[in-house]
C-alpha cells in the first residue's frame, strides 16, 4: 500500500514538473524560432522581407530536446557516480546542457544568416546577444524539470531504463509535445498576425511574416510574451498529461492482472484504453469545431 501511495505522489510531482517543462520548452522554441514555423523565417529574406527574427535551425524540436535532456541526464549520472548530491548533479548536468544549447543556437543563427547574404539579410549582434540568453534561460527550466522527472522515475519508481535512456525517451516526447501543440499557434497566428484572420496563409503571403512591433522593428524575443499566454501552457498541459497518465497507469495497474498470469499487461491494456478515449474526445472536438465554424467563406 505504501508503495502505491509513494507512486501516486511521484506521479503527481512528475506530472507537475512535466507541465512546467512543456510550457518552458514551447516558449523557448518560439523565442528562438525553432521547428516548422522557422521555414517562413528562413524564406522571408528570399522574398524580399529582411527581418530581425532569430533563426535557431538546430533541427526539429524532438531531436534537439533529445540531445539537451539526454546530455543533462548523462552528466547528472556521471556526477552521482562521483558521489555528488543528486540535486546538485542534476543542476550541473542542466547547466552544461544549456551551455551546449546556447552554442548550437548561436552557430545556427550565424550560419543560416550568413548563408542568406545574397538577399541582403544582415547578422544582428544585438539579437544574438539578447535572444540567445533568453532561450537559454527557458531551456534551463525545461531541461531541469524533465531531468528531475526522469530521475524520480529512475530512483523512486525503479524504472528499468538507465537515466540517459529515460532522457532520450522523455526528451523526445517533450520536443514532440511542444512541437505538435505549440507550433501551430506560433506559426499560423503570430507570424501572420498581419493577415486577415482565418484566411489561412495564401502562397502570395509566403515569407511576409510580422516584422514590426508596436514601435519599430521587432526581434523574436516578444514571441515569449505571446507564447506564455496560450501556446506554452497548452504544451505544458499536453506534456504534463502524457507524463502523468503514463506513470498513473503504470503505478496503479501494472500488477492488476498478475493473478491471471498476464504479468504487467494491466498497464498496457489501460494505456490502450486511454488512447481510445482520447481518440473519441479528439474526434468529438473536431466535429464540433467543423459544425460550429465551418469552412472559410469570403466576407460579402
Amino acid at each position, binding site marked *: 500500500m505504501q508503495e502505491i501511495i509513494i507512486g501516486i505522489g511521484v506521479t503527481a510531482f512528475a506530472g507537475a514538473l512535466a507541465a512546467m517543462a512543456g510550457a518552458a520548452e514551447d516558449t523557448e522554441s518560439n523565442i528562438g524560432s525553432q521547428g516548422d514555423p522557422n521555414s517562413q523565417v528562413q524564406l522571408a529574406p528570399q522574398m524580399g522581407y*529582411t527581418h530581425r527574427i532569430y533563426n535557431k535551425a538546430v533541427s526539429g524540436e524532438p531531436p534537439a530536446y533529445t540531445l539537451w535532456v539526454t546530455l543533462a541526464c*548523462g*552528466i547528472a549520472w556521471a556526477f552521482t*557516480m562521483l558521489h555528488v548530491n543528486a540535486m546538485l548533479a542534476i543542476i550541473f548536468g542542466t547547466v552544461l546542457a544549456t551551455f551546449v544549447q546556447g552554442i548550437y543556437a548561436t552557430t545556427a543563427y550565424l*550560419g543560416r544568416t550568413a*548563408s542568406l547574404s545574397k538577399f541582403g539579410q*544582415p*547578422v544582428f549582434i544585438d539579437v544574438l546577444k539578447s535572444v540567445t540568453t533568453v532561450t537559454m534561460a527557458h531551456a534551463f527550466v525545461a531541461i531541469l524539470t524533465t531531468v528531475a522527472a526522469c530521475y524520480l522515475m529512475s530512483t523512486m519508481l525503479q524504472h528499468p531504463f538507465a537515466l540517459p535512456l529515460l532522457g532520450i525517451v522523455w526528451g523526445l516526447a517533450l520536443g514532440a509535445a511542444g512541437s505538435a501543440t505549440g507550433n501551430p499557434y506560433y506559426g499560423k497566428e503570430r507570424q501572420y498576425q498581419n493577415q486577415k484572420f482565418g484566411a489561412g496563409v495564401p502562397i502570395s503571403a509566403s515569407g511576409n511574416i510580422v516584422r514590426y512591433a508596436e514601435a519599430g522593428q521587432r526581434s523574436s524575443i516578444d514571441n515569449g510574451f505571446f507564447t506564455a499566454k496560450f501556446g506554452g501552457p497548452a504544451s505544458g498541459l499536453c506534456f504534463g498529461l502524457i507524463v502523468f497518465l503514463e506513470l498513473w497507469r503504470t503505478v496503479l495497474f501494472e500488477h492488476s492482472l498478475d493473478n491471471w498470469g498476464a504479468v504487467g499487461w494491466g498497464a498496457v491494456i489501460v494505456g490502450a484504453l486511454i488512447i481510445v478515449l482520447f481518440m473519441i474526445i479528439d474526434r468529438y472536438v473536431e466535429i464540433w469545431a467543423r459544425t460550429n465554424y465551418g469552412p472559410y467563406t469570403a466576407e460579402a
Partner: protein
Amino acid sequence: MSVKVEVSHDGVPHNTVMMKNGILALFFLYIAIAAASVAGDGSWSYPAIACVSGGIAAVFTLRWGNSTIKKLCSYGIGTGVPSAGMLAFGSGVIAMLFATKVNPFLVPIAGLLVALIVGLILGWISNSVLNMKIPVMTRSIAELAAVGCLTLMGLTAVATGDIGYDQITTGLTDPYASYISAGIIAVAFILGAIALQHPFNACLGPGEKQDRTDLLAIECGFLSMIVMAVISFAFVSQIAAWISFVIALIGWFVTYRQFFALSKRDAAAWLDAKPFSDAEE
C-alpha cells in the same frame, strides 16, 4: 526524380575530403587503442592520450560525414538533414558493438567494414525499394554508417579511454555501472547524430561556403568532446579526464571564435543594435 542543387563550387572535392579525414580518423583511433593497451593500473598519461586521440578521431570523422551529408542533401533533402544524422548513428551503433567483440587492433577496421555493409543494405533499401531514386543515395548512406560507427568509437574512447568490449561493459567506480549499462552510449549516439547533421543544416542556403561549414563541423566535434570529457570523470582517472576536458575546451573555443570571424566575412552586413533598411519603406 530529384533536381541536384549545387552547393559550394569552389570547394575541395568530396573524395579528397573523405580519404584525408577517414585515414586521419583511423590513425587517431589506432593511437587511442595503442595507448589503451599499454596503460597500466593507476597511470594517467596513457589514458589521457587515448581520450584525446579518440576525440580528435571523432572530429576528423565528423568532417568527413559533414561533406557526405552536404553531397547527399544537395538533392533537395531539406528536412531530411537531421534524419540523416540519426540514420548514420543508428547503423553506427550496430557496427560498433559488433566490432568491439574482435581483437582490439582490428576494432576500427572491422567497425568500418560492418558499417559499410549495413549502410549499403540500408542505402539499397531506400533507393531501390522505397524508390527515392537519388544517384548518390546508396554510397552516401554507406559512408554515413561508417562515419556514425567511427565517431561513436572516438566518443567512446573519450569517455572510457578504450574501445574494447570488456572496457565498455565494466565501470571504474561501480562495476555494474558501465558505459553500456548506464546508457552513456545513448548520450554518445545523440551527441554525434546532432553534431553530424548540424554543420550543413546550420549553414545551408545560397551563400553556403565549404570552409565555414567545415569549420562548424570541427567546432561541433570539440563541443561533443567537451561533454564526453565531463562524463569521463566517472570512467577514467581524474588527471586524464582534466587533460582531455581542457584540450576539448581550447579546441572548441578557437574554432568557435574562428566561426564568428568567417560568418562576419560571409554575412551581408554585421549590425549591432541598428535597424534594417527595408526596400518598401
